[in-house]
C-alpha cells in the first residue's frame, strides 16, 4: 500500500511539470484574453463616445423588434423613466391598442441616476423616449446632447408654459412643489404655533424639529436646497444653512428615511414634525372619510419642480417616439398623473382629484431658478453644502 502510493507520488511528480506548465499557459492565455478584451473595451467605448454626436451610428435597443419585421405598424418604443414613474395600465393599454405602438418601460433609478445613464449611453441609447427629467437636471441633459428636438401638437394645451429649450428638445408633462410638510397634531398637542417661512425654521422654538434630505443623494433634498438658494440668494444661503445646522436640523440621505422614520406625521411616528416632502404628500395621510388632513405643506417654503419628456438622440424610430410624447400630453394620460405620480398635470383643462383641491393646494409663489443657473452651479452648490453640513 505504502509502496504503491510512493510510486504514484513519484509518477505524479514526473507528470507534474508539463501539466503545471500547461495550466500556467492556459491561465495566462485566459488572463491575457480577458485583459485584451478589457483593452478593446476601453478603446471601443471611447470611439463610440467620440463619434456619436449625431447619434446616427447607433443600433437601437428596444426598437429592434419593431423595425425588423414589418416597418409600418407594430413599432416598439422603449420609454426610459425614473423610479417615481407609474401609469394606470388601462390608460397604457388603450394607447397601445389605438396607436399600434408597444411601450416598453425601463426604470433607471432616480432622476440624477437616470440622466447619468443617458449620458454614458449616448450614441447607443437605452431607449427611444425619456420621461421624468426635472428642471434640476434638465440643463445637464440638454448640455450633454442626448435629446432630439420634437414639437408636440398638444404642447399649446399647457406644456408650452414651461418651455426651457428654444429647440424643443424637452416637453413639460407635469409639475409639483417640494415644500416643508408639517404635522398639525404635534403643534396642536404642544400648543406651539406652526412655522410658515424658511426663516421660521431657524428659530429657537423649532429647535430639533426639522428633518431634511441630503441634496447629493435625494431629489427633494436638492430641490429644497435650490429653494433656499433662490430665496436667500447665492450669497445668503450658506449663512441660512449654518443657522439651520445650529438649530438641530437632521439630514437623512433619502426621502424614505426622512418621511417614514423621522417625521412624526406618517407611518414611522418619528419625533420631528417638520420634513422636506411634496405639496402633494398630505392627501396620502388622510384617513378614508376624514375631512381634515393631519399634515400640511408650508406653501411659502416651496420649490417648483417641473418634469419633462423628450426624444432620445439616436432613436431608430423618431416618428413613433413623437407619438409617445403626444400620448404623455393627452388628456387620458394627464388625468391620471396626480393619482399615479403625485404631480400636477401641465394641461390645465384636466380636472384634479377632489381631495387634491382640499389637501394639496399648489404654492401661489414658489421659489424658482433657471435651468441654466442650476446647471452651471449644481455641483459647486452641492459640494459647498456638503462641506458646510458635514465638514
Amino acid at each position, binding site marked *: 500500500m505504502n509502496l*504503491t502510493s510512493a*510510486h*504514484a507520488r513519484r*509518477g*505524479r511528480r514526473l*507528470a*507534474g511539470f508539463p*501539466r*503545471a506548465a500547461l*495550466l*500556467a499557459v*492556459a*491561465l495566462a492565455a*485566459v*488572463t491575457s484574453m*480577458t*485583459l485584451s*478584451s*478589457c483593452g478593446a473595451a*476601453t*478603446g471601443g*467605448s*471611447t470611439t463610440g463616445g*467620440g463619434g456619436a454626436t449625431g447619434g446616427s451610428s447607433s*443600433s437601437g435597443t*428596444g426598437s429592434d423588434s419593431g423595425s425588423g419585421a414589418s416597418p409600418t405598424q407594430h413599432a416598439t418604443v422603449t420609454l426610459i423613466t425614473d*423610479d*417615481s414613474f*407609474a*401609469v394606470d*395600465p388601462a390608460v397604457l393599454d388603450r394607447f397601445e391598442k389605438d396607436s399600434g405602438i408597444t411601450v416598453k418601460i*425601463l*426604470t433607471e*433609478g*432616480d432622476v440624477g441616476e437616470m*440622466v447619468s*445613464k443617458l449620458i454614458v*449611453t449616448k450614441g*447607443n441609447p437605452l431607449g427611444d423616449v425619456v420621461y421624468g427629467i426635472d428642471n434640476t437636471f434638465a440643463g*445637464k441633459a440638454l448640455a450633454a446632447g442626448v435629446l432630439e428636438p420634437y414639437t408636440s401638437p398638444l404642447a399649446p394645451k399647457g406644456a408650452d408654459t414651461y418651455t426651457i429649450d428654444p429647440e424643443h428638445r424637452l416637453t413639460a408633462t407635469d409639475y409639483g412643489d417640494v415644500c416643508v410638510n408639517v404635522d398639525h397634531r404635534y403643534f396642536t398637542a404642544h400648543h406651539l404655533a406652526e412655522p410658515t417661512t424658511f426663516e421660521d425654521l431657524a428659530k429657537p422654538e423649532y429647535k430639533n424639529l426639522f428633518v431634511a434630505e441630503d441634496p*447629493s*443623494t435625494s431629489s427633494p433634498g436638492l430641490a429644497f436646497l435650490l429653494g433656499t438658494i433662490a430665496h436667500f440668494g447665492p450669497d445668503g444661503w450658506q449663512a441660512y444653512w449654518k443657522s439651520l445646522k445650529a438649530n438641530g436640523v437632521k*439630514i437623512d440621505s*433619502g*426621502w424614505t*428615511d426622512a418621511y417614514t*422614520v*423621522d417625521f412624526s406625521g406618517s*407611518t*414611522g411616528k*418619528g*419625533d420631528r414634525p417638520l420634513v422636506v416632502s411634496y405639496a402633494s404628500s398630505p392627501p396620502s*395621510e388622510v*384617513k378614508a372619510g376624514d375631512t381634515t388632513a393631519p399634515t400640511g405643506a408650508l406653501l411659502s417654503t416651496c420649490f417648483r419642480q417641473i418634469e419633462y419628456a423628450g426624444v432620445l438622440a439616436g432613436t431608430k424610430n423618431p416618428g413613433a417616439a413623437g407619438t409617445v410624447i403626444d400620448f404623455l400630453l393627452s388628456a387620458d394620460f394627464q388625468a391620471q398623473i396626480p*393619482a399615479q*405620480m403625485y404631480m400636477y398635470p401641465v394641461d390645465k383643462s384636466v380636472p384634479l382629484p377632489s381631495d387634491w383641491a382640499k389637501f394639496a393646494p399648489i404654492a401661489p409663489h414658489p421659489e424658482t431658478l433657471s435651468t441654466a443657473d442650476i446647471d452651471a452651479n449644481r455641483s459647486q452648490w*452641492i459640494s459647498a453644502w*456638503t*462641506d458646510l453640513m*458635514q465638514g
Partner: protein
Amino acid sequence: MTGAALVARRAYRVGAAGRCVGLIAVAAVPALTLGVFFCYPVASIIGLGLHPAAGWDLGAFGSVLGRARFLRIIVFTVAQAAASAVLSLALGIPGAFLLYRRDFRGRAVVRALATVPFVLPTVVVGLAFNTLFAPHGWLGSWGWGGSVAAILAAHVFFNYTVVVRTVGAAWAHLDDRPVLAARGLGAGPVRAFLTVTLPALTPAIASTALMVFLFCATSFGIILVMGGGHWNTIETEIYRQTAQVGDLATAAVLSILQIVLVAAVLVVAAWLRRRTETALRLRGAIDTVRRIRRADLPAVVVTAAAMVLLILPIAILVTRSLTTPTGWSFSNYRNLAGVGEGNALLISGVAALVNSLRSALIAGGIATAVGVMLSMVLTRRSRSRVARRATAALDAVMMLPLGVSAVTVGFGFLIALDKPPLDFRSSALLVPIAQAMVATPLVVRMVLPVLRAADDRLRQAAALLGAGPVRVWASVDVPIAARALIGAFAFALATGFGEFGATSFVARPETVTLPVVIGRLISRPGPVNTGMALAAGVILAAACGVVVLLVDLTANRRGNGSANGSGIGGF
C-alpha cells in the same frame, strides 16, 4: 520496479494529460464569465472616465487624492470594514460551533433564522435599524441613532450568517480526535481549542474575515440609509459621483482606489492562506456532532445574544408591517396581491416573489457551477511555482466582484454589453447573472477550504485504482465537500434572493424582483405603500428562511447517507 507500479504510472500519465485538458476547460468557463461580466464592463466604465473623447485625463487622481474629504472616506471605509469583520467573527464563531458541532432541538430552525438577515434588502434593514435606534424607538435610549455603532450593528446583523455558515461548514468536517488526544494528554478545553482547533480552523476563519471585510468595505445601502450623509464609504461616494454628480473621472479614480485596496487585502489574505492551509483530517460531518452539554454554556450565551441582535430588527419589521392607520391588520399583506396605491408597481408583489425565486434559482445554479469549477482548479496543488502563482492569481481575481462597486459594474454593463455579440443589456438573464457574480466568490470560499483540506492521497489512490478524473472527483471530492456544497448552494440562493444593488441596476420591468419592489414601494408616500414594502420584506425573510431550511434538511439527510455509505469518516 514491479509491473504493477509501471502500469500504475502509465495509467497516471494518461490520466494526467486528460486531466490537464479538462482542467483548462474547467478553468476557462469561470475565467471567461468573470472576464465578460465583470472585468470588461468595469474596465469600460473606468476607461470612459479617464479617457473621454479628448484623450487621457489623469488630473482627477490629483484632485481626488488631494481632497481631505476623500481621504477621510478611504480611512472610514477600511476602519469600519475591519471593525465589522472582527465583531462578526467574535459573535459568529461560537455560533458556528453551536450550530455545526452541537445537536439540540430546533437547531435547523436557528440556522435558518441566522440566514434570514442576509437576504433582507439593505433599504429595509436600514429602515428597521433606524426605527430601532430612533429617539422614540425600542433602543432609542442608547443614543445610537446615526452613529457608527448602529452601522456596525447592522453589518454584524448581515454578516453573522456568513461567519456561521463558512466557519461552520469547515468545523463540521473537522476530525475531533486530535482534540480528544490533546485533552487526554492533559490540555484544558481552552488550551485544546487554542492549540488544536483554532489552527485547524484558521483558513476558514481567514477567508470568512476576508469576505465580511469585502462586504462591509463595499457596503452601500446601509451606509447610505444609516450614515445620513455623515458617514461615507468609497462605494457610496462612487455612487454619488457616478449617478448624481456625473463626474465619471472622479468616479473612475475612486473605483481604481477601491480595486487597489481590495487587491491589497486579497494579496494579504492569500499570503495568510498559504501559510495556514494544510491537509487536515476530515471526517463526515455526522460523526462530529455531539449533544449539547453544560460546558457549551459560553457559546450558548454569545449565540443567544447574537440571536437577540438578529431578531430585534426583524421584529420591528413584522410589527410595522402589521400596523395600519386603522389599527392592527393583515391588509398590507393582502395588498401585495395587487400593484400598490396609485399603481406604484408595474407588476404585483406576488409576481415579483415568483421572479425572485426563479432568478435566485438560476443565480444559485450558475454560481454553484462556476464556483465548483473554480474550486476544482484552485484545489490542484501544483509543484511548479508559475502554476502556483497563476492559481493564486485566479483565486484572488475571482474574489474581486465582492469588493468592487455595484455601481461601477452596473454602469459598466450599460456601456460594455450593448452590442452584439455581447448584447445583454436588455436580456432577462442579466439579473441572475449579476446575482451569480456576487454569489460565486461565496461558493468558492465555502467549498474550497474543505476541498483543499482533503488529503490528496485519497484522489491518488482512486486514480491508481483506475478511476478517471471525473470519477475521482465524483467519488472523492464530492462526498467530502457534499455538505459544504449544499450549504454553498443554499447560500448562493439566499444571495440571489436578497441581492438589491446589482439587480436594481439591471432589472427590467418584467424581471423585477421582490427586493427591487420593496425599494420602489418604500420610496413613495402613503401608509399603504410603506406598509406593503415592510410586508414584502417580511415575506422575503420568511421565504428565504423556508428555502434555506429545506435545503439544510435535505443536506442533513444526504449527509447522513453519504457518510454512512462511503465511509469517509473511516479513512
